[in-house]
């Protein structure tokens, strides 16, 4: 039925199966749509956010998703600027993931702020000292860049390609992609760093605060590093999931292995620096605030195990696997390590947001806990649904994996 839309020379499931596959994601989107409507119509009282948990599930999702989407800029950087040819087989995937992550994050942010219609005040009345302004600026610009990077791929659809004007546009965009990739790299680099800065500069919140050297450049680079260490892993995960579901090999091993190795190395460097960051914080900020490390975990639902999980299980373990050639070669180990790596980044962002806010600063205040409402889950999961949907559509109708035909020669008809 939709075969004229499907790229030449590849095999896709029937429209019926595809439709069934999209149903759960459409359901998530519908749930999210209802939640979003309620939040916009009635206000943020629909959530369980409070004056204590001013930032909550959505911001965790946002930060996590943006870190996971970092594969796009990093792969783009490696492909177009550094010139790693083998990555051309995976760059499209990275861009689509990046686009999904960033656009999803933007939508979530739009609902998260109390006055979405005034959202553009961030740009127009910018307070340049605010890290969030830098983040907003860069994310907005970078989303434009990602769209620009995504457009040529869309224009390569079999039917769209027939329109001459669009074909020209696509080709021309493709030609100067290196410029956009460079801009994207620059923007991404800054906002990934600023996201870290966002918490580091909250100097009156001892759990998040860093000072001097530990804000700039330490936290800044830690966030960049953590993002580029996990971004490629997320790209690998998505690719592997697609390969598993389509029962096809889509990306040559060299690309995957290169990304995995790089991820492992970056993660290792990150872990070393992060350890120093923790030590510097434990022996610097924490005692200066009159606290001890364990004070942050003496009460409340968020225990010290979170940090152990973040650093050891979701940091050290995947790093070791990814650095071992055997680990990279084994599909199971690779996927396991990538999963851990991605979980680690979510944990890291969770700690920075939720635990920072749960810990009372005034000694007579209490520890707080927080559970999201169904509306919050709805919007968070809608991004997941949206991601699956866009990714599936892109896989079905666009030549997302350039090596697909080569790796899966169609048996002669």
């Amino acid at each position, binding site marked *: 039925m939709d075969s004229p839309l499907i790229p030449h020379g590849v095999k896709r499931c029937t429209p019926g199966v595809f439709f069934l596959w999209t149903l759960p994601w459409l359901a998530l989107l519908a749930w999210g749509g209802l939640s979003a409507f309620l939040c916009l119509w009635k206000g943020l009282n629909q959530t369980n956010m409070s004056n204590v948990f001013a930032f909550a599930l959505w911001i965790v999702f946002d930060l996590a998703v943006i870190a996971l989407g970092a594969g796009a800029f990093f792969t783009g950087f490696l492909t177009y600027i550094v010139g790693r040819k083998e990555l051309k087989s995976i760059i499209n995937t990275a861009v689509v993931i990046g686009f999904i992550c960033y656009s999803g994050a933007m939508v979530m942010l739009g609902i998260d702020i109390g006055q979405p219609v005034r959202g553009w005040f961030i*740009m*127009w*009345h*910018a307070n*340049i*000292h605010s890290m969030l302004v*830098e983040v907003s*600026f860069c994310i907005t*610009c970078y989303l*434009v*860049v990602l769209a*620009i990077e995504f457009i040529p791929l869309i224009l390569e659809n079999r039917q769209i390609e027939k329109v*001459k*004007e669009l074909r*020209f*546009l696509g*080709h*021309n*965009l*493709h030609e*100067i992609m290196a*410029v*956009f990739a460079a*801009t994207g790299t*620059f*923007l991404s680099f800054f906002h990934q760093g600023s996201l870290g800065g966002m918490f580091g500069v909250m100097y009156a919140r001892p759990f998040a605060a860093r000072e001097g050297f530990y804000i700039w450049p330490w936290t800044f680079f830690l966030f960049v590093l953590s993002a580029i260490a996990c971004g490629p892993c997320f790209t690998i995960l998505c690719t592997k999931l697609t390969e598993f579901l389509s029962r096809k090999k889509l990306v040559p091993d060299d690309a995957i292995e290169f990304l995995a190795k790089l991820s492992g190395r970056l993660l290792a460097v990150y872990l070393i620096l992060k350890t120093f960051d923790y030590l510097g914080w434990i022996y610097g900020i924490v005692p200066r605030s009159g606290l001890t490390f364990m004070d942050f975990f003496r009460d409340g639902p968020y225990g010290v195990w979170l940090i152990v999980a973040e650093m050891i299980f979701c940091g050290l373990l995947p790093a070791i696997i990814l650095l071992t050639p055997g680990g990279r070669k084994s599909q199971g180990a690779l996927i396991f390590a990538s999963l851990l790596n991605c979980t680690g980044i979510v944990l890291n962002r969770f700690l920075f947001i939720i635990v920072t806010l749960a810990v009372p600063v005034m000694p007579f205040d209490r520890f707080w806990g927080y559970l999201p409402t169904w509306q919050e889950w709805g919007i968070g999961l809608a991004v997941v649904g949206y991601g699956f949907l866009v990714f599936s559509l892109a896989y079905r109708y666009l030549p997302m994996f350039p090596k697909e035909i080569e790796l899966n020669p169609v048996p002669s008809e």
Partner: protein
Amino acid sequence: MTPLSFEWQWNIEYVIFFGLLYVALGIIGGGITFVAIKTALQVFGFMRERKFHD
């Protein structure tokens, strides 16, 4: 924010911050405009489109 607004402050931080922002916007905008004009010229036929090679 532009230097026309009363909230603008003439100091180095503003110049660097907005300078970088406007440069980034300029590159993106310039790139798009370049591609748009080029495409238009090709479509209008003022310019031969080159064959796209991968």
